[in-house]
C-alpha cells in the first residue's frame, strides 16, 4: 500500500476541511486554519499509516490547529474578566442574508456543539470519530451535535419565519 500524491489529498479533501474551518473558527480565521492544517498534514503525510481515514486525520489536525489558534488569541488578548460565549462578528455583513445569519447562529453555539456539528455534518465523520477527536463518548458527541442543530434550527429557521433573529 503506497501513498497517493499529496495533490490528490488537497483536491479531494480541501473544500470539506475549509467548510469545517469556517464553521469552527469563523470565516475570517478559516484560511489561516486551513493553511496551517494542510502544511502540518504535508509534513506528516509520509508517515501516515496506510489505510488511514484521511478525512478524519485532516479534521483531527484542523481541530488541534484551532485549539492552538484560540490559545494564541487568548494570550494576545487583554484580560477582561468573564466574557460570555460571544458570537464572532468578523466577516459577517451587517444586514442578514440567510448564509451570514446562519454563520452568526453557528458562531453563537458553545464550542463543543459547533465542533460536533462541523465534524459530523460537514466532514461526515461518524460519532465514534468525532468523540475520538473531541474526547468524551460517542453518545456525548451525538448529544452535542443534536443540541447544536436544535439551537441552529431555533435561531435560524425561526428567523426565517419571523424575518428577525432574536
Amino acid at each position, binding site marked *: 500500500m*503506497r*501513498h*497517493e*500524491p*499529496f*495533490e490528490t489529498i*488537497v483536491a479531494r479533501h*480541501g*473544500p*470539506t476541511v*475549509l*467548510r469545517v474551518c469556517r*464553521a469552527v473558527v469563523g470565516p475570517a480565521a478559516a*484560511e489561516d486554519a*486551513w*493553511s496551517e492544517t*494542510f*502544511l502540518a498534514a*504535508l*509534513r506528516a*503525510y*509520509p508517515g501516515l499509516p496506510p489505510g488511514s481515514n484521511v478525512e478524519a486525520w485532516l479534521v483531527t489536525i484542523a481541530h488541534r490547529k484551532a485549539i492552538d489558534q484560540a490559545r494564541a488569541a487568548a494570550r494576545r488578548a487583554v484580560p477582561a474578566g468573564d466574557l460570555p460565549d460571544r458570537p464572532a462578528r468578523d466577516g459577517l455583513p451587517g444586514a442578514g442574508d*440567510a*448564509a451570514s445569519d*446562519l454563520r452568526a447562529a*453557528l458562531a453563537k453555539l458553545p464550542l463543543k456543539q459547533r465542533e460536533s456539528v462541523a465534524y*459530523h*455534518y*460537514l466532514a*461526515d465523520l*461518524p460519532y465514534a470519530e468525532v468523540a475520538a477527536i473531541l474526547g468524551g463518548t460517542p453518545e456525548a458527541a451525538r448529544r452535542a*451535535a*443534536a443540541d447544536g*442543530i*436544535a439551537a*441552529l*434550527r431555533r435561531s*435560524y*429557521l425561526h428567523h426565517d419565519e419571523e424575518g428577525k433573529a432574536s
Partner: protein
Amino acid sequence: MMSANDTPGAAELLAALTGEAPAGDEETSRRLHARLVAAAAQAGILDVTYRTVETPVGPLLLAATAEGLVRVAYAVEDHDAVLGQLAARISPRVLADPARLETAARELDEYFTGRRTGFDLPLDLRLSTGFRRLVLAALPGIAYGSTASYAAMAAAAGSPRAVRAAGTACATNPLPVVLPCHRVIKSDGTLGRYAGGEAAKQALLTLEGAA
C-alpha cells in the same frame, strides 16, 4: 456526502451551511493552494512539484525535485500513473506548481518552435541507476539533428556488447526530449522503441531535420 442526516431540520441547515458560491470557492482554492506551495517550499517539505505543457507531441508532464527536473512523461504513459510512481519512488509530498517549472516549460517551448537545440536545465537522474544512467549521461553527446545507433550508445557508456541494455536504457529514459533518446535508432535505420510512441519519435527527428 451527507449521510448523517439523522436530526430533523438538519438537511436545510446543512444546505445553507455548505452552500458556497462555486466560483468564489474556486478562486479561494487557487489562493489556498498557492499559499500551501509557498509555505511548503519555505519549510523545505516540497519534495516533488509538477505541471503539464502543451507540445506538438501532446501534453507533457514535467516533474522536478529540489535538485532539478526528474521526469518528463508523455500522455501515453498516463500522467496520473506517473505521479503515483513518483509518490512511491521519491516522496508522496507531491504538489502541482507551474511557477517552479517555468524555465523548463519555456525551454521546451523554444525547442518545439525550433529556437533551441539543447537544454540548459538542472537534472535529477535519481530514477535511473547503473548502466542505464551511464547511457543517459551519454545522450546529450548526440548532436541536435543527428542520430546514433544503439551499439554506439552501448560503446559510449563503456560496454560495447551491451546493445540490448542500451536499448532498454533509452526506452526507459525518465527524461525524454530533454535527454535525446529519440536520436538513438536501430542500425538498420528503423526507429526502435520510444516511450512516447514511434510517431512522437519521428516527429522530433523531423523537427530537428534529422529524418
